[in-house]
């Protein structure tokens, strides 16, 4: 059996975020709290954001799901903390393009996110990876 293909999906950094999620939890005095689920598979995320002067000063996630959805939530919160809300939305756009297999050309710091680029080769798992990002986009757009 060859796990070569699987290794493009389950990279070390993804597994690290899955096992040791960053920014796990709920912000008690959050400005935005978004619940989102993937009704076809049962994945669930609660994302809370603290925004000051148009900057995401804190982000936490809580929920349950597979390695891809949970690591993506961890990486997403890590990537948007300290960014302007517009930049966070821009990252979400970049992320969905990445899921379509497009080349990414951006000045923004992508952090660990690029590790998820292999997901585009597993179409059934794209929804897992985008859940946290959709929650973030929805929350910020509704708050605007």
């Amino acid at each position: 059996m060859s796990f070569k293909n699987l290794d493009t999906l389950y990279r070390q950094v993804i597994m690290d975020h899955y096992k040791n999620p960053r920014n796990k939890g709920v912000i008690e005095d959050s400005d935005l709290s978004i619940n989102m689920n993937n009704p076809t598979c049962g994945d669930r995320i609660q994302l809370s954001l603290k925004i000051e002067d148009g900057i995401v000063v804190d982000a936490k996630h809580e929920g349950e799901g597979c390695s891809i959805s949970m690591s993506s939530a961890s990486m997403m919160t890590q990537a948007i903390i300290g960014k302007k809300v517009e930049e966070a939305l821009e990252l979400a756009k970049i992320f969905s393009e990445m899921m379509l297999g497009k080349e990414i050309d951006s000045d923004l710091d992508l952090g660990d996110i690029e590790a998820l680029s292999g997901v585009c080769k597993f179409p059934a798992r794209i929804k897992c990876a985008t859940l946290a990002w959709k929650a973030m986009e929805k929350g910020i757009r509704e708050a605007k």
Partner: protein
Amino acid sequence: MNIKEIRSYFPILDQEVNGQPLVYLDSAATSQKPVQVIEALNKYYREYNSNVHRGVHTLGTRATDGYEGAREKVRKFINAKSTKEIIFTKGTTESINTVASSYGRANVKEGDEIVITYMEHHSNIIPWQQVAIHTGATLKYIPLQEDGTISLDDVKKTITKNTKIVAVTLVSNVLGVVNPVKEIAKIAHENGAVIVVDGAQGVPHLKVDVQDLDCDFLAFSGHKMCGPTGIGVLYGKKSLLENMEPVQFGGEMIDFVNLYDSTWKELPWKFEGGTPIIAGAIGLGAAIDFLEEIGLDAIAEHEHKLAAYALEKMKDINGMTIYGPHDPSKRAGLVTFNLDDVHPHDVATVLDAEGIAVRAGHHCAQPLMKWLKASATARASFYLYNNEEDIDKLVEGLIKTKEYFSDVF
């Protein structure tokens, strides 16, 4: 049963997926189709495609004969008294919705009860929630035992004289439990209620006799029993169907149309508005011929052996949780499970890389998932074309999945 010969009738099984021979273990979601069914569809579209019950031309007559001939095959298959009791629908969901929208809305009122179980598929929950919401009736759940089965004591406690409808699945799509539907029907009738049986996971796998079960309604889907998608059946006792209003109005189902009102055709056509699912019904008829030639009892026995074999092999895998009764005699041919520390999606992805198709998710049974305290599970389901080798590969794949995830951690 000659599994090698049976497998040869399913061309889809003869292929590689991700460089490995396909091991299809997702028949509870949809079964594969034998050449006999594929050819019946092909023949219909190539040779006698035409609309039914209208026109006098030769093709129209052939199509009508094919469509109504399929209805007779279904009648015989479930031992209904009359073809008037066999309504073609697009599947189990539509069948149950027809009963809920027609019989349910007309016969359930405020203060009445509708009784279902914790193990129902969403398609046998939500239609009844809707009836309860619209009529003010109460929806009650028969609880589950520790092993996922239901006890007749609980059935007797839950069904009361206020119960108008009892809706229960014959076989659980998650737990594999086979419910004592005949006994439940008796209790329902003693209390003056009707019983609606979700046969989606039962009818394809074990011999169902509606007169023996004495069920009032039975719903099932063609695509889970070697037939095409888009065709299903609603069986109902004639005395009940005769007093029910149609839920879809239009062509096909009318007798006389006046300017301001109309009258309906007789059973079963008053429930089949619009051009019916002709090819689907003919394909389902071919699937029934195929299954009957092998024999439902032989199929049930084969699946039973596979389930027992799978349970035996899988329980030895370290960190394995198997849901539902561990006693194979209480089960149909599917095993729902979780591996410690590996999410079912990840299990399904790793197995897929090995060419093994299993289902991962909540299986359209969210209340049951809550009862199991699992947000998602993986499920391997078997049918007549599966063999022990498929299960060996599954077990091998699961062991490798565990190794892979302990390596990356």
